[in-house]
């Protein structure tokens, strides 16, 4: 009789602890502010994307697309993906009212491998620039500069205006030699630097 009572008490304790744990899990989750809403996550999943630039196939690596996604939740997202239909996208979103986040241009650098430069096997740069930016250059860790072609596409427009898009894949040999992109520089039509964003390679 005593044993049965102990078992019941023990079972009741397990159930109580499990319920308390579920409740505490919700409290812990709630401690994190600024989480993406379900609506936002659904818009990333369901809203249409538009291909605005291409990253050609290179050195055995497949071609990729630069995609823009205006969302129903008020964001403009910029993605690097295998295709427009790909569920696997790399990049990010800003408010549609300020897609460049207050800058002249914005970039997203995606790469496989690392963190050591020589271990990087595929690195791609994508970006959006205001029409004030006439050209984009990449400063490499050896001091050389590379010009990145930009494309103006009517699809790259939001309530904040229209933009140029770009996508570039760094040759694999760069990283094997320990060479990486140290900064991305935006120049105006007169060739004056208007914005510089560092990439973390080369300090």
């Amino acid at each position, binding site marked *: 009789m005593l044993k049965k009572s102990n078992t019941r008490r*023990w079972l009741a*304790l*397990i159930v109580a*602890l*499990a319920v*308390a*744990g*579920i409740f*505490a*899990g*919700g409290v*812990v*989750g709630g*401690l*994190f*502010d*600024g*989480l*993406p809403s379900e609506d*936002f*996550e659904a818009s990333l999943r369901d809203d249409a994307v538009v291909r605005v630039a291409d990253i050609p196939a290179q050195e055995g690596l497949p071609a990729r697309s630069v995609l823009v996604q205006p969302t129903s939740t008020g*964001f403009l*997202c*910029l993605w690097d993906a295998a295709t427009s239909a790909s*569920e*696997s*996208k*790399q*990049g*990010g*979103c*800003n*408010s549609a009212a300020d897609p460049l*986040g*207050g*800058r002249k241009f*914005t*970039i*997203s*650098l*995606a*790469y*496989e*491998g*690392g*963190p050591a430069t020589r*271990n990087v096997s595929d690195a791609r740069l994508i970006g959006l620039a205001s029409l004030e930016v006439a050209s984009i250059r990449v400063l490499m860790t050896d001091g050389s500069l590379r010009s990145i072609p930009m494309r103006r596409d009517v699809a790259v427009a939001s309530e904040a205006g229209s933009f140029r898009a770009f996508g570039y894949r760094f040759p694999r040999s760069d990283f094997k030699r320990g060479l990486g992109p140290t900064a991305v520089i935006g120049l105006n039509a007169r060739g004056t630097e208007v914005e510089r*964003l*560092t*990439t*973390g390679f080369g300090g």
Partner: protein
Amino acid sequence: MPMRRLICAIAIFVVTMFASNAWAGSVPYYSSKWWTPGMGGSSAFSSSWWQSGFAKAGGFDTTVTFIDNTGYNWHATVRGWATWQHTHWLSSDVKKAHCRSNVSFNGGISSTCVASN
């Protein structure tokens, strides 16, 4: 015997607490209102993570990636300034999601790193 029961009770509580978070699909693993260069965190190791995201209070320079549990190599890394940033690594390898700031930033409200399974 009471000590064994206490340990068991604590284990049930902790496991349920974390499991109830993980069931949600998106699991926040690091959050802060202020950031300094190199500051960040990682999720637990799991083979089921497929998305690493960063919901930011402002457009500051950050990195999201996955780190495997064999060579601690980085995979599907994305560095950028967007207020929402994410990457996908569709691999069955055991990995942890990792995020870090590359600059100092104080947004007044929290910026949070999230892993999805």
